């Protein structure tokens, strides 16, 4: 007879596991990946590959030689960080900047805190913001979309809608004039025919991924919903006050990284709040800060910074918002 296994209860377990969650998110990113390849060609794959391989390599090296712990690559989080990092950069980014981004994302953003689950800030965003600030020129040199460009010849570059809007407003033009002179319409922004980073261009592809994750219960609906609602509300109110100076909610929701950020980056479990109420506060904070930076800040896009700032508040949110205890505390 075998030796009996003795362990504490419970003796059954549901089917979910960390790798399943990570791979679930990766699957949800596939529509956006396909769109990025369609619009940016081989460059998109190149950037993805460099990001993913660098992230895996750095995590494996750090885990093996610095931390001297078990191999953590199979849990899928390094692959996911690599993919998300790649989605946040332009398709024509030089390979060495991508590698630096991966090094900072994994080394500083994740492993320096102790590995998976211990980092307060979203690693992909840490890496992205680092290379944005260090290499601003290359990180804002957005390629124009060139459908199914597999020739590898570099495409032309052009500004993103957000950048166009920002510059235009700074020059004193009216919102409606800027919108009509823009090469992309709102419909184009939904499907992906606009300039931008790899992952942020197609709202539809990202929403499809989001619905998949909601179905699999990987992300809560509260975070994306609160971000969209607060951006739409804030931008909508400003637009009502002065439609010539402030762009409307549809514009803000569809341009830049809002879709990507709200559905994939802000919902990262490790760095988001652990209560539903907390998630609302977090989402509203992100939305407000994003619009603030976009309208009054120096950068045309603010969601990366907004998410990182709110990540910093998450421990405070977690400590202040506790679940309701069953039964009032008994009077002594």
């Amino acid at each position, binding site marked *: 007879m075998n*030796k*009996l*296994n*003795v*362990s*504490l209860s419970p003796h059954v377990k549901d089917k979910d596991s960390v790798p399943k969650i990570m791979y679930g998110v990766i699957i949800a990113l596939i529509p956006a990946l396909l769109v990025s390849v369609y619009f940016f060609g081989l460059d998109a794959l190149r950037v993805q590959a460099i990001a993913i391989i660098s992230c895996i390599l750095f995590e494996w090296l750090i885990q093996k030689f610095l931390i001297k712990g078990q191999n953590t690559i199979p849990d899928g989080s390094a692959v996911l960080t690599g993919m998300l990092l790649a989605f946040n950069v332009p398709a024509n980014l030089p390979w060495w900047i991508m590698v630096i981004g991966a090094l900072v994302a994994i080394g500083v953003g994740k492993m320096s805190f102790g590995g998976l689950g211990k980092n307060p800030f979203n690693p992909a965003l840490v890496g992205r913001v680092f290379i944005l600030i260090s290499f601003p020129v290359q990180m804002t040199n957005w390629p124009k979309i060139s459908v199914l460009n597999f020739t590898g010849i570099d495409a032309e570059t052009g500004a993103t809608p957000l950048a166009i809007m920002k510059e235009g407003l700074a020059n004193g033009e009216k919102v409606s004039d800027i919108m009509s002179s823009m090469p992309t319409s709102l419909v184009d922004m939904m499907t992906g025919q606009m300039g931008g980073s790899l992952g942020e261009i197609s709202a539809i592809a990202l929403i499809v991924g989001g619905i998949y994750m909601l179905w699999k219960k990987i992300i809560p609906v509260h975070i994306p919903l609160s971000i969209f609602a607060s951006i739409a509300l804030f931008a909508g109110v400003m637009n009502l006050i002065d439609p010539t100076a402030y762009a409307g909610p549809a514009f803000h929701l569809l341009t830049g990284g809002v879709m990507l950020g709200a559905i994939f980056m802000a919902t990262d479990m490790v760095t988001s709040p652990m209560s539903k109420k907390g998630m609302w506060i977090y989402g509203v904070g992100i939305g407000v800060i994003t619009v603030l930076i976009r309208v009054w800040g120096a950068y045309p896009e603010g969601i990366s910074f907004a998410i990182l700032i709110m990540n910093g508040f998450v421990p405070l949110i977690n400590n202040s918002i506790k679940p309701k205890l069953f039964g009032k505390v008994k009077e002594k």
Partner: protein
Amino acid sequence: MDDLTIVLLTLATLSGLGIILALILYFVAQKFKVVEDPRIDEVDELLPGANCGGCGYPGCRAFAEACVTTDNLDAFYCPVGGNELMKNVADALGAEVSEKEPQVAVVKCQGSPEHRKDIREYDGPQNCAIAHSLFGGTTDCANGCLGLGDCVEVCTFDAIHMNPDTKLPDVIEDACTACGACIDACPRDIIELRNVGKKSRRIYVSCVNTDKGAPAKKACDVACIGCGKCVKICPFDAITLENNLAYIDYEKCKLCRKCVPECPTNAIVELNFPPRKPKAEKPAGEKTPKTEAKAKKTVAAEKTEETKPNTNQDK
């Protein structure tokens, strides 16, 4: 404004600021100064600063305060610094203190896989307290060491480590300060503080099994079966038998070694003694020939080959 003026103004401003702030700090420090007996600082300087709690006080500073305010230093002992330190403290305070026997942690279990077979598996956190609440263990001895290392976790002096071959903890005598942390951590009271002994020699029953003889022996072949032969042979009445388990009182034990060969299961361990002379019944503890100059004071493993009683003397 020319450059020289700027530099001079900067220097002046910063220096002035520095001086003003320093003066503020000085006056505040004087106003809110806590008046303490200066002897507490003196004694605190002498203490090792490990804050291990072995003295029974929450940290060295608290111990220093207690020493200064007491009448009788005999009730106070820092196991890390030992008798030497207590003498220094006594001198600093102009008092007297009596010497105490140094002690060391002793692991009273020999149940390695060689002697105690695993009959079931454990799946759970590597934590003795948790495993202890779950079941008796992976072997048939429900009192024995679980090998999950709560004692190792809690030692702040790096004096106890889990031996990967025997799956039992080994105490490094030189590093052990007898602070008592591992004694508290062990959920089964397997570790005990015992006197270090002259020349680091100690004799103890290395077993805590309270089962009757037959199940004890079946579970582990070096278990104490409670036969009582050691009790009978001890000339100093140092051994008592309770709950099928023998115990040697280290205050009464004179290290004569008579009990060790009596034990039918080799449950009694003699540490750091020279090997017995064949055919001699001479009790050890007497002066030993030069070959024994290597009385091991350095690393004292809990169970070493040379301390097993020499069975040459039975025919």
